[in-house]
């Protein structure tokens, strides 16, 4: 298994301070005590048991994109407050707090980059921003990702980690599901591939829209992926859910995803996939034959 190559010189000064030398963390999988630095080195994968801990969008860039480079699109999009929603705290305050702590404007970043030399339209959810929830901005950016993928003939690689639709934008969040899927279909019509990468967790409105509509769906090991959250299901059926329910391995067993891929092999696999889907010579020009026109 090829270990991802790190930039020479190791951590930069900023990373060192933010990591705090000598900080220890317990692995969520095996309970082993690990240094934050060691986990950083392995992209938050436990060297003992392989547990995949959450990885920041910035680190995903480092891991997946050539030279960690993303030409960011539409970084300035920000939500408004269409419902004047408050739940103890007004929605704009909640957004502002998330923006301060995450140093991002919203729960997704999109842009152009390369994976093993193949130029792609790339998107990654920021779970740390309000649980990666999809409101108007996330919906708009996913839509633009698919639209630009189609217009520029760039395969779309989208890394998802989301609790679902954003409640604070109400019904407009639900509408983003339709909007994004319609854009995904335009990409399909353009004959450009979409590789959907499902991370922990992918549920609700993101799962039930574009997440499973990849030409290929790949999941990280042990990720929670499903329509309804486990607690909602347990409340509804009044019984405990079996071990491993809605985890990646369960989805693979039930035929819902193509592959489970370790984070440490993700780039290599995406490279292989894109090689097959993009760099290949088609047997014949892709036909976009449409259905016969219908008279009223």
């Amino acid at each position, binding site marked *: 298994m090829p270990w991802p190559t790190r930039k020479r010189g190791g951590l930069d000064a900023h990373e060192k301070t933010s990591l705090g030398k000598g900080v220890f963390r317990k692995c969520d999988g095996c309970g082993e005590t690990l240094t934050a630095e060691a986990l950083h080195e392995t992209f938050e994968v436990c060297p003992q048991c392989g547990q995949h801990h959450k990885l920041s969008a910035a680190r995903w860039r480092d891991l997946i994109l050539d030279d960690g480079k993303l030409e960011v699109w539409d970084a*300035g*999009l*920000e*939500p*408004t*407050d269409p*419902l004047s*929603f*408050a*739940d*103890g705290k007004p929605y704009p305050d909640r957004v502002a707090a998330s923006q301060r702590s995450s140093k991002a*404007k919203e729960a997704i970043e999109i842009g152009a980059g390369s994976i093993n030399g193949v130029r792609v339209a790339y998107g990654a959810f920021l779970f740390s921003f309000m649980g990666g929830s999809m*409101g*108007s*901005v996330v919906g*708009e950016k996913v*839509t633009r990702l698919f639209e630009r993928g189609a217009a520029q003939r760039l395969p779309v690689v989208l890394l998802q980690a989301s609790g679902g*639709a954003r*409640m604070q*934008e*109400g*019904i*407009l969040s*639900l*509408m*983003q*599901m*339709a*909007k994004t*899927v*319609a*854009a995904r*279909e*335009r990409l399909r019509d353009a004959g450009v591939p979409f590789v959907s990468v499902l991370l922990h967790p992918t549920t609700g*409105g993101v*799962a*039930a*829209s*574009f*997440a*499973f*509509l990849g030409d290929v769906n790949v999941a990280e090991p042990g990720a929670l*992926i*499903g*329509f*309804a959250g486990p607690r*909602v*299901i347990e409340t*509804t*059926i009044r019984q405990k*859910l079996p071990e491993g*329910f809605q985890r990646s391995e369960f989805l693979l067993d*039930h*035929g*819902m995803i193509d592959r489970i891929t370790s984070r440490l092999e993700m780039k290599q696999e995406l490279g292989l996939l894109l090689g097959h889907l993009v760099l290949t010579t088609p047997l014949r020009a892709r036909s976009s034959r*449409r*259905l016969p026109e*219908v*008279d*009223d």
Partner: protein
Amino acid sequence: MAAFVLPFEKPVVELVTRVRELRALAEQDRQFLPELRRLEEKAGRLAKELFSDLSAWQKVQLSRHPNRPYTLDYIGHLFDEWLELHGDRSFGDDAAIVCGLARYRGRSVVVVGHQKGRGAKDNVKRNFGMPHPEGYRKACRMYELASRFGMPILTFIDTPGAYPGIGAEERGQSEAIGACLAAMARARVPVIATIIGEGGSGGALALGVANRVQVLEYGTYSVISPEGCASILWKDGNKADEAAERLRMTAPDLLRLRVVDRVVEEPAGGAHQDAAAAAKLVDAALHTTLTELLAKSPDQLVDDRYERFRSLGAFVG
């Protein structure tokens, strides 16, 4: 159908009942006709007044009213030559979604709707209108069939939501809903969705990617149930009334947010007081909208639907 009366609709129900009694009398003896007209007019006005400032939560209760007309009721009133079609071709048939072919004003159409049960036994069969993946896959098959044969798609939305259960997850509830959204987006025919009751989240949207979406006066549409919202926000499902207010899920709010294109008025006291009259009002709205959409080419219809949803959302930058 067992009568069920919500506390706040009592005065309206009494009025409507008196009108109904007088109508029966007038059918036998024409001398009651003038009084019937007077009472109808008065009842209509009073009912409007009494229902004019219903809270969001009261409207939610109306949208879930057990006497409310369901999809099959509307099918009975609106269409001829109804032919139900079953099954998803891979696992089973889901009675929580009914699909079929019908004739609407002389034209063959494909009908897809959520179906709630009437009474306990029927509700078990219909799973309270909460579909499993096979229901959505059946719907998907219908969208494709309609597109293939050039038949308009008319959907009726009325569900608390897609069913959250073990089997539903095993068989890919998420994928099934996503595939419906895609198939609706691709349909090369007019698509009109009517929210006749509850529009519960993704499970409702799977029937909602339409060129035009209309909602009945006391229909609702929301990203999450008010109970679910309250239990997340305040760890208290009993604050559903407050959540219903904040979610902006009633017809006027949906129109303001441009999530629906039209609000269809209901008869005095709500659709459940007079299903035939409710169907008449739905019919008028459907007819106008369908006529308008039939003027568009298949490409225009797909683009029109794309732009409709493309423009929804609130952001700056």
